[in-house]
């Protein structure tokens, strides 16, 4: 059995930890379209975020957000795996007459990009261009500089820049900066100082899972640093603080066991390691515990028990080996990627689905595999979007054809009605009305403005008068004639009395014709213009639909071909990773079998001697 390897485990922890929150925070929203792009960006839906942002940029609807939009676009291009395109976008921000704050954010983004690509020189160059005017930006810059220094194996420089950033922080401290400073201190041999820092970080009250994970890492790093410097009992205190459900709990349990072994308390090591043995054998600490437990039994002279656990370990290793062989073979199945997709979706989006295939989390944990898988998933999403667009465009084409048919049906009817409406003729008629009215007013032709009823009454009175006229002269005729005259006088008076109001009403009615006549002329003009525009618009939309359909058809074979290549790459990476896991199990299997053989030999020797 190999002895404890805290150095190797510690080295894994000492690589530095970058926060997802290092991405530049967006500026306050002053454009709805910019906010809409953010809505999708924050949900990690980079396709929809990018499409909306680029559409708003094209339509110049971002107002004062132009530079923010480029920075956001660069950020989402990075997240969408378009590193080269993102670099060009950030360069564009720098080329534009950007504000100092926008330039700082662009340089910071370029530095992060270079850091992620392992291009330390370019990362340092970009970091050197940041003007660090405000303390928050300075602390972020210090954190990234520190990470680059750690990656460059220059922990001394890392300590210097991180300490500078640490000093700049006011109020709430960035746990990532503190953690990385402690890591840099450990790597410069200042473990005591580092442990003091990690101790504070490891006891901090937290509200979010991300903060709890950093706290676990801090306790683990302090524990391994203490174990490394020969203080195993002190290390136990820190191992004990790590949550049993956290992402590094397996490492903490393994370390706790080795701390007990280092302190000479072999029996005490069995508690964390037995807990590990109960866990799914999917990562190194669990696999290692399977041979660490019998190693302890051997130290306690419990050979029979050691042999039983070694046998159990061999059985588990063999099962795992077979499962991996099966998993490697499964990668040739075309359905396999679909299965991985279903299982990884919750993992990649930060969910907590239980995995039926316990080898998958380790596969996903590999950054190269994850990037390749994400690319495959993105291409698949793009293919689905093209399919949807193709269907939508067909529907839109039908809609336009229908619209055009309806247009062709309705337009002749409208044209016919428009032809019957001659604005000049209507203006002439209005003019004639005006002249007639003036004549009525000038000649005071009251009867021309009388109502039909009044004219009827007048006719009846005149008829009555004629009938009275025909009567033989008598006192009765005189009485009738007198009544008719009074009736005539009354009616005449009524019609004349109403004339001034009727004259005013008629004048107003003629004047009121001006507005609808003018509006009608305008509407006829608008209608004729709209008719011409609608024809052009339908034609333009049809042309654009046709062009879009052609583009989709042209892209699909290229997309399909790239998807096949990417699928092959994901498969190769999976096979490589699974084969490496199998090789690791083989190594443990060999150790367990060898130890078991030695135990049998010893038992046989003892039996022979007796």
């Amino acid at each position, binding site marked *: 059995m190999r002895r404890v390897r805290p150095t190797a485990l510690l080295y894994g922890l000492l690589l530095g930890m970058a926060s997802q929150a290092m991405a530049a925070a967006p500026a306050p*929203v002053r454009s709805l379209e910019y906010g809409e792009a953010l809505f999708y960006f924050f949900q990690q839906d980079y396709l929809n975020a990018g499409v909306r942002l680029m559409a708003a940029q094209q339509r110049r609807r971002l107002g004062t957000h132009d530079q923010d939009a480029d920075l956001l676009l660069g950020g989402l291009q990075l997240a969408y795996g378009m590193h080269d395109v993102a670099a060009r976008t950030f360069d564009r921000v720098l080329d534009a007459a950007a504000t100092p704050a926008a330039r700082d954010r662009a340089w910071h983004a370029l530095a992060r990009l270079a850091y992620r690509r392992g291009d330390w020189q370019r990362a340092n160059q970009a970091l050197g261009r940041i003007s660090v005017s405000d303390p928050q930006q300075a602390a972020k810059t210090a954190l990234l500089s520190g990470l680059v220094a750690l990656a460059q194996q220059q922990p001394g420089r890392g300590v210097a820049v991180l300490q500078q950033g640490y000093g700049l922080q006011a109020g709430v401290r960035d746990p990532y900066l503190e953690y990385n400073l402690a890591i840099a201190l450990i790597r410069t041999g200042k473990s005591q100082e580092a442990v003091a820092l990690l101790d504070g970080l490891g006891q901090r009250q937290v509200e979010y899972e991300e903060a709890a994970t950093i706290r676990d890492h801090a306790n683990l790093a302090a524990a391994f640093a203490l174990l490394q410097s020969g203080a195993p009992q002190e290390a136990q205190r820190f191992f004990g603080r790590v949550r049993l459900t956290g992402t590094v709990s397996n490492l903490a349990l393994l370390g706790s066991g080795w701390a007990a072994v280092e302190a000479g308390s072999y029996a005490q090591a069995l508690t964390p390691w037995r807990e590990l043995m109960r866990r799914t054998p999917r990562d190194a600490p669990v696999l290692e515990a399977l041979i660490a437990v019998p190693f302890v039994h051997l130290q306690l002279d419990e050979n029979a028990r050691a042999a039983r656990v070694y046998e159990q370990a061999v059985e588990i290793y063999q099962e795992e080996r077979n499962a991996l062989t099966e998993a490697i073979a499964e990668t040739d199945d075309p359905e396999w990627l679909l299965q991985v997709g279903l299982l990884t979706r919750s993992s990649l989006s930060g969910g907590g689905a239980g995995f039926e295939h316990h080898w998958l989390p380790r596969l996903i944990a590999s950054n190269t595999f994850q990037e390749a898988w994400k690319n495959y998933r993105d291409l698949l999403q793009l293919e689905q979007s093209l399919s949807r667009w193709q269907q939508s465009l067909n529907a839109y084409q039908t809609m336009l054809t229908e619209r055009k048919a309806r247009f062709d049906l309705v337009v002749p009817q409208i044209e016919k009605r428009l032809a019957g409406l001659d604005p000049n003729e209507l203006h002439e008629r209005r003019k004639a009305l005006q002249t007639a009215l003036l004549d009525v007013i000038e000649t005071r032709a009251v009867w021309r403005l009388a109502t039909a009823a009044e004219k009827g009454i007048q006719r009846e009175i005149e008829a009555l008068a004629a009938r009275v006229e025909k009567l033989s002269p008598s006192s009765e005729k005189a009485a009738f004639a007198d009544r008719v005259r009074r009736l005539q006088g009354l009616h005449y008076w009524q019609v004349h009395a109403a004339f001034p109001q009727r004259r005013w009403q008629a004048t107003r009615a003629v004047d009121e014709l001006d507005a609808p006549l003018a509006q009608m002329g305008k509407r006829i003009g608008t209608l004729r213009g709209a008719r011409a525009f609608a024809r052009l618009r339908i034609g333009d939309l049809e042309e654009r639909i046709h062009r879009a359909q052609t583009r989709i058809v042209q892209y699909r074979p290229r997309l399909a071909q790239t998807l096949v290549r990417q699928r092959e790459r994901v498969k190769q990476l999976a096979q490589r990773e699974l084969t490496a896991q199998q090789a690791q199990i083989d190594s443990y299997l060999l150790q367990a079998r060898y130890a078991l053989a030695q135990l049998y030999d010893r038992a046989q020797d003892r039996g022979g001697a007796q």
Partner: protein
Amino acid sequence: MAQSPARAAETASADADLDQAVQALKEELLELNRDLFILEEELLAPSDTQVMVFVSVDVGSFFSLDSVQVKIDDKVVANYLYTPREIEALQRGGVHRIHLGNLKSGEHELTAFFVGKGPRDRDYRRGATVRFAKSLGPKYLELQIVDLENKQQPDFRIKEWE
């Protein structure tokens, strides 16, 4: 199994080549999707008659949003139930476009109902109404959920954008 250096270099080159191809394709397809998005909007809601309604949340300490219903001229045009992920995106500054439609020029009335949990985790349903004039050109309306610190209550406002 370790690869030979020559084989490893060949694999790295093929991987880099594929990475470039994927990046270029993504860039071009993003542009195509953008053009299609613009085309679709112009087809479904031409700028003369276009009306867009957005939802935004400012802080959101006094109101936890579940759903929003939008009525224009007494006709329901949108009903949206938010997921926790969408709520988080809204609280971080994202703005959700809840409705894209068409309206004739003239006077209109928009009513929005906000459903969720108010102060002390009580069920909360509130409405807000605005009368607005639609002229030629697109019309944007923003349904804002804001915190009134002094009253320790949420407030619901409708803002017209030019």
